[in-house]
């Protein structure tokens, strides 16, 4: 599965520009589905029919955070703004990939004092991107206003731990791909939504379930960690402790029945798991929960270090255990 994670995370596809990742997902799936479609906002929906009447919706968002070019100055430097939650401190000095054109992020500073000041109160207005152009014309021939870019970073296999950009949430996409590949004849019908524009505010997931009307929805997404030096004290989640069953975050409270069902399954099957409470953030589960008359929803998270950076780290065993747990879930008789 590591090869799939490498392929998916190295694709550059920020929110609103997901065509390349959607195509790659279909390629990797290699026909392991009963059908698929792209909906009007670009969500990729792939399904496999089951024997029961129940419909389970799995969701992982295929977009990643990025930047968009808002201006090009006379000397060919680009100005950018964030697409999703991009930390400007992480941007400084990093490389950006604009559909194959590489840029380097620089920071303004007319004196040492103002350079320090800019760094102290860092915002996008004092950052610029250098694509190696000598003037405006040369720059706009490479990258136009309105072009989207992402961090330029490579996948690294550190053994049990994997590092790449866009683990958020290509790791969820990889889990769903693996589910579709491994489940030959699921008991329940499964609909895998590879959602768009999650990072902008759950845009794709808000509409993806409209025609499906699932009986239950599970978002698979990354979550924060508490196991690095002086990490957030109130967060218990650790890499390697198994899939994190989300109790709540800033945008939704997981359905209790689903949560208990998943816990029991994990206990019975001997799959390690941990419980998650995230005091902030949100996942697509929040959108499904509010769909039409409401869909019972929950999130299964993969604990990830350095989220929204070019080097997000996950534990490979957590990923495999997440696939195992969800596979058993999809084959269980459910009463939601």
């Amino acid at each position, binding site marked *: 599965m590591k090869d799939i994670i490498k392929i998916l995370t190295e694709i550059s596809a920020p929110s*609103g520009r997901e065509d390349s990742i959607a195509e790659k997902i279909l390629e990797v799936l290699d026909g392991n589905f009963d059908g698929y479609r792209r909906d*009007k*906002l670009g969500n990729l929906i792939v399904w496999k029919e089951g024997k029961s009447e129940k419909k389970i919706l799995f969701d992982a968002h295929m977009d990643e955070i990025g930047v968009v070019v808002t201006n090009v100055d006379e000397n060919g430097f680009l100005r950018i*703004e964030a697409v999703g939650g991009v930390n400007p401190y992480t941007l400084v000095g990093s490389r950006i990939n604009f559909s194959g054109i590489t840029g380097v992020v620089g920071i303004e500073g007319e004196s040492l004092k103002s350079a320090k000041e800019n760094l102290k109160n860092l915002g996008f207005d004092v950052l610029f991107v250098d694509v190696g152009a000598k003037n405006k014309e040369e720059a706009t021939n490479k990258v136009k*206003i309105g072009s989207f870019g992402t961090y330029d970073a490579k996948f690294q296999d550190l053994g049990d731990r994997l590092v790449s950009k866009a683990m958020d949430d290509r790791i969820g996409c990889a889990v769903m791909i693996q589910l579709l590949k491994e489940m030959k004849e699921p008991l329940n019908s499964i609909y895998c939504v590879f959602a768009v524009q999650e990072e902008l505010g759950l*845009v794709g997931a808000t509409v993806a379930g409209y025609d499906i009307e699932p009986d239950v929805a599970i978002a698979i997404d990354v979550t924060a960690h508490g196991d690095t030096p002086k990490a957030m004290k109130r967060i218990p989640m650790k890499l390697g402790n198994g899939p994190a069953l989300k109790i709540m975050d800033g945008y939704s409270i997981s359905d209790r029945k689903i949560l208990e069902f998943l816990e029991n399954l994990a206990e019975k099957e001997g799959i390690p798991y941990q419980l998650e409470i995230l005091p902030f953030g949100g996942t697509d589960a929040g959108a499904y929960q509010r769909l039409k008359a409401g869909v019972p929803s929950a999130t299964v998270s993969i604990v990830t270090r350095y989220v929204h950076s070019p080097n997000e780290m996950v534990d490979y065993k957590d990923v495999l255990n997440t696939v195992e747990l969800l596979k058993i879930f999809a084959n269980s008789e459910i009463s939601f």
Partner: protein
Amino acid sequence: MFLNELSPISGVSGDEKRVREFIKKTIKDKVDELYEDKIGNLIALKKSKFSSTKGKFAFFAHMDEVGFMVTKINEDGKLSIQPIGGVDPRLLPGKRLRIGDKNILGVIGFKAIHLQENKTDVPKYQNLSVDIGMGKKSEAEKLVNVGDYAVFDVPFEEYDSHLIGKAFDDRGGCSLMMDLIFENLALPFDVYFAFVVQEEVGLRGSGIAAEEIKPDVAIVLETTTAGDNPELEEYRWATHIGDGPAITFMHRGYVVNKKVYDWIINTAERKNVKYQYKRRTAGGTDALSIAKRLSGIPAGVISIPCRYIHGPSSVMFKDDYHITLKLLKVLLEEGEVILS
């Protein structure tokens, strides 16, 4: 252009009835269907003359403007107000307001300069009061009520190159839609025109209208901030007056659907219509609430650049208005059909 008539009408969010009545009365003989929904959106339909068309296209513009509401009548006869939508209180001292259905004139008061302990005191809503010339609560109560709406008292003025007035956001968009209704365009598909309510308080009307119309594609017509102040470097401007309609690729909470965005840009390029990019991503429009309705509605945004929006007086270049209108006509008549 109907902006000269639309701009002076008072129509703060939730109180759009005068705007709605004016539009209704003006367009009623020019459309195939016209109705008002439960929340107060006005929806008009122009049918395509071609028999083989499929699909629905919709334009959206909001009728409401930012303004104020009277929250309390004080013992000294002065009024406390709160903003409806985003109005910077630093713009307010000394400005005139028209209050309530009786159009009572008021002046916004702030502590006189010689009484300010700190000359850099910034006005806040809690320190501002509106003076309607009454010395006692009982006198003021005869003229105004708690809950009365108030708007800036600003005339509409037209010059050779530009227009000055209030509420260009988004009566400019309403005017564009009315112009499109009045033009006898060869529409390739049925076109709905949604004049929506309560945008300024959180995009409340548009999603409901979208749910009713169920369009296949929607375009939001807005006016957008110019921010082209001379003291700022050009690369910091959001848009520039005189450079034509501003096309949005992304704003708060939504990346404009690529198909719709490419359709707008490619048509403008192909037909040589001047346009500019909206070069800031802050702020949102009804496109966000429309896109998230039903099973998803691809929505785009086209705006007239405008200086000083959400303040008492905005400035719009007539050329920008007319080029925007031209772009819309070209999109409808000569743009490759987006619905398929």
